[in-house]
């Protein structure tokens, strides 16, 4: 066991939280944001259909998926930067699980 500086630990938490806030904001804008101004967006067309309809039926879903994959990749990089080893995580985690 090695002690981690409070600043390092806080920085880790801050970086991860910032990622969460950014991605959730993007998700919020492409769904609720477009719905709230649907009448305005209906004057544009994308792939043959009004933009508000496109965002609801495809655009938002595709962006949600991209957000999740991007977050998974970026979070892995953050973990690596802070010297976290996923194999160690897995072995620690399997010992801690409450089993029935």
């Amino acid at each position, binding site marked *: *066991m*090695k*002690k*981690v500086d*409070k600043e*390092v*630990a806080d920085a*880790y*938490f801050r970086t*991860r939280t910032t990622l*969460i806030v950014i*991605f*959730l904001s993007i*998700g919020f804008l492409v*769904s*609720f944001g477009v*719905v*709230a101004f*649907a*009448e305005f967006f*209906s004057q544009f067309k*994308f*792939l*043959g*259909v*009004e933009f*508000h*309809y*496109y965002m*609801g*039926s*495809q655009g*938002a*879903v*595709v962006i*949600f*998926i991209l*957000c*999740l*994959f991007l*977050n*998974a990749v970026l*979070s*892995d990089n953050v*973990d690596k930067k802070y*010297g*976290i*080893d*996923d194999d*160690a*995580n*897995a072995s*620690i*985690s*399997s010992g*801690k*699980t*409450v089993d*029935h």
Partner: protein
Amino acid sequence: MDAQTLVSLGLILATFALYIGISIFNRAKQTSDFYVASRGIPPFWNGMAIGGDWMSAASFIGMAGTVLALGYDGLAYIMGWTGGYLLLTFLLAPQLRKYGRFTVPEFIGDRFDSNPARLIAAIATVIISFTYIIGQLSGSGVVIGRLFSIPAMYGTMIGVVIIAIYATLGGMKGVTWTQVAQYIILIVAYIIPIVFMSLQVSGNPLPWLTYGNVVDEIGAIDQELGLSEYFAPFAESDKSQFIALLFTLMVGTSALPHVIVRFYTVTTMKAARWSGAWALLFIGFLYLSAPAYAAFSRFILMTQVAGQPMDELPGWTDSWINTGLLEIADQDGDGVLDWTEIAVGNDMVVMATPEIANLGMFVIGLVAAGAMAAALSTAGGLLITISSSFAHDIYYRLMNPKATDQRRLNAGRIAIVLSTVVAGLVALDPPGVITQIVAWAFALAGGTFFPVLFLGVWWKRMNSKGAVAGMLVGLASTLCYIFLAMNDIMLFGIQDTGAGVIGVPINFLACVIVSLVTAPPAQHLQDDVIDLRYPEQMTYKDGEVWMNDGTGK
């Protein structure tokens, strides 16, 4: 029995045999693996299993029909049911994974160190899963009803028997690979018909790129008929209802007990993030296709069925009229069927589309098998959740901590049989269409659990009294609003399906206020919450963070 019934029935039975085969094979393997440390399921396959578990009869049978009927306003279901995975993967799943307890009542009971909270959570889990399962049962009723051209009600009765046998046969623990198979079958069955329809209508095999133009053409036909355009926003309901429904479905998705349980099988917080990403990709294939389904079906109905003389209607219309889901009447008596004289039940669209587009017996049978896969996989997962809430959280943890494994197993089986029978009785005369019933389950899940889980993993000051108050007030206000809205008493035009937007904020307020005016939770409970900020290798203890580098304690 005609040839079509034989082909459909044959495909359904063949897929059943596959699921049973997989579960028997896995059960044998699990016994031999029992003493080996479990290595966890890779996120890719777990994502696929989450997809199979998640996509229910509502997604498969009901959603495209809802979009067809509601136009743009139906898209709240598409965005809501996918967006929930964002909330789940960012805000809840990794933290719940690190906490190491995987049923929702168990997390709530242990995090707040409170048996009353555990009991309320267990009862709420049963209520939510029960509501959800009614939707699945009436979905299997639609499939079986069409298969034998009988009213959907009798179809539901047969479906109840099949699902009860399927779930009690056992082999449901560790169903991951069965759900992977069910995912593959349902997604293939869903996508093949729209590829053919896309070819028929536009000559391009990629429906996702072509249906935009079809939507535009439907809008033009609507305009000619003097109806509101298909893609026009908020034609069927208020904007406030759209936003309320979207919110309810998103928040509810992230708080559904049977979905959260799926993150049990992964190894780490990192694997939970990747599982969420893969799951949404696999789920996305179906959700991106549903609006295409709706557009093509509506286009073919409007251009090829409407406008036909009454005595020259295609053969499939008869069998759907028998199920009670299709109504046609020549109201103006001119001998021609007009678009406005066709009443298409939401729940028949996906099932009927291959017949409407004349795609042949095999595709029709495949869609029936896919729909059964969707209903079965979700119903199975729900029944397990109900039985574990009852047998584990209520019976074992609260009533009889000394119960033997055998007695707990029996308690679980009784819970499964009872809930299937009661849900089956309710589903005989469903209180709404499938997507609507399912939306209630989401409102209840979000209204009862989301604030408690969210604050539970992010806010160390949250205590047991706050959790109890939040769940009770949230559950009660959501239920109340659903009943009021069903009786036409509504706030801001928000209907019963959007009830989560009422229940969730009330629950949040109750949690925060009650927690703040009562004593803070014990120090070790608060430390547990701070510990969730870091990956498994880092541990929070007495105000300091320690890195486990393998050099002992």
